[in-house]
């Protein structure tokens, strides 16, 4: 059974569940805000980047490329490549997104960042909530990222160091807990193993975030073999 819809209860649950992650997002947003100053972005440019692009890894990469005259085409193309992993994440949520009317689905997907996707999928595939989860989780993560960008930009002189508090590991811990929650049995071993191995190799040889796309695709393609027996 799949629950479809956007309930307020789920939104509240999503907001609560994402609070611990929001702390880490805030720490990294502060670092981003601080670095925008060094990269010569204006205050408006920094705020617009976090508010509209709302994709941490792409924004950090863009900072490196932010030299005038701006390589506009390269910035846009690089951002697209870095964010291609969202296509796979959105695909995995399709069973719950498709029943929603477009006027809800399209604004909702604006909020889908890595952490929001992972938390939402973790709750929704167990029927613990509906897509309202993403509204709550997405809003909290977006607010944390925006608030932190502004804060980091204003505070400026204090250099926050997320690593000192182990906050950089928070993302890893959350993703690990969610992966443990996805475990259904031995059948999960081949796709996860193929995905992880492919990702490690890709991570080693290809710069950027291609390893997520490569590993995710490779792992899911094991479905071509596994299902022959019952097909």
């Amino acid at each position: 059974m799949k629950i479809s819809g956007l309930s307020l209860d789920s939104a509240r649950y999503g907001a609560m569940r994402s609070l611990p992650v929001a702390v880490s997002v805030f720490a990294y947003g502060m670092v981003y805000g601080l670095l925008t100053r060094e990269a010569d972005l204006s205050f408006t440019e920094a705020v617009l980047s976090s508010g509209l692009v709302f994709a941490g890894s792409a924004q950090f990469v863009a900072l490196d490329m932010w030299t005038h005259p701006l390589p506009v085409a390269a910035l846009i193309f690089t951002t697209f490549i870095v964010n291609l992993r969202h296509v796979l994440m959105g695909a995995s949520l399709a069973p719950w997104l498709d029943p929603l009317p477009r006027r809800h689905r399209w604004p909702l997907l604006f909020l889908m960042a890595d952490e929001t996707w992972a938390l939402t999928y973790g709750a929704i595939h167990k029927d613990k909530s509906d897509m309202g989860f993403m509204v709550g989780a997405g809003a909290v993560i977006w607010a944390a990222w925006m608030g932190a960008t502004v804060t980091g930009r204003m505070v400026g002189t204090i250099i926050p160091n997320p690593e000192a508090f182990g906050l950089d590991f928070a993302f890893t811990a959350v993703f690990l807990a969610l992966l443990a929650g996805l475990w259904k049995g031995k059948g999960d071993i081949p796709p996860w193993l193929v995905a992880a191995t492919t990702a490690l190799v890709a991570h080693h040889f290809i710069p950027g975030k291609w390893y997520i796309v490569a590993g995710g695709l490779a792992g899911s393609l094991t479905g071509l073999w596994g299902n022959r027996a019952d097909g």
Partner: protein
Amino acid sequence: MQTDSLIAIVGMALVTYLTRIGGPPLVRLVRGNRRMEACLARLPGSILAALLAPLVFAVGPAEAAASAVTLLVSVKFRSMPLALVAGVWAVVIFRHMI
């Protein structure tokens, strides 16, 4: 704010949004194909495993050890917040030890 900055940021926002809404239409193309649906069922775990692999195995021994602690806690207690706290504590301790 200069025009080229505005074009760059709006362009970046637009292509990012395209990646966010692009998944569901792609799924519609393969609907009804049993093999492709078997693949889709394996997609979420595969994305997470791919995302995690370098974070767990390619950062350092402290991170790898803390990952083991996190996994143990999440399997034993089935609580994400608890696993998060345990993992963060573990990584701080292991970084001091190793």
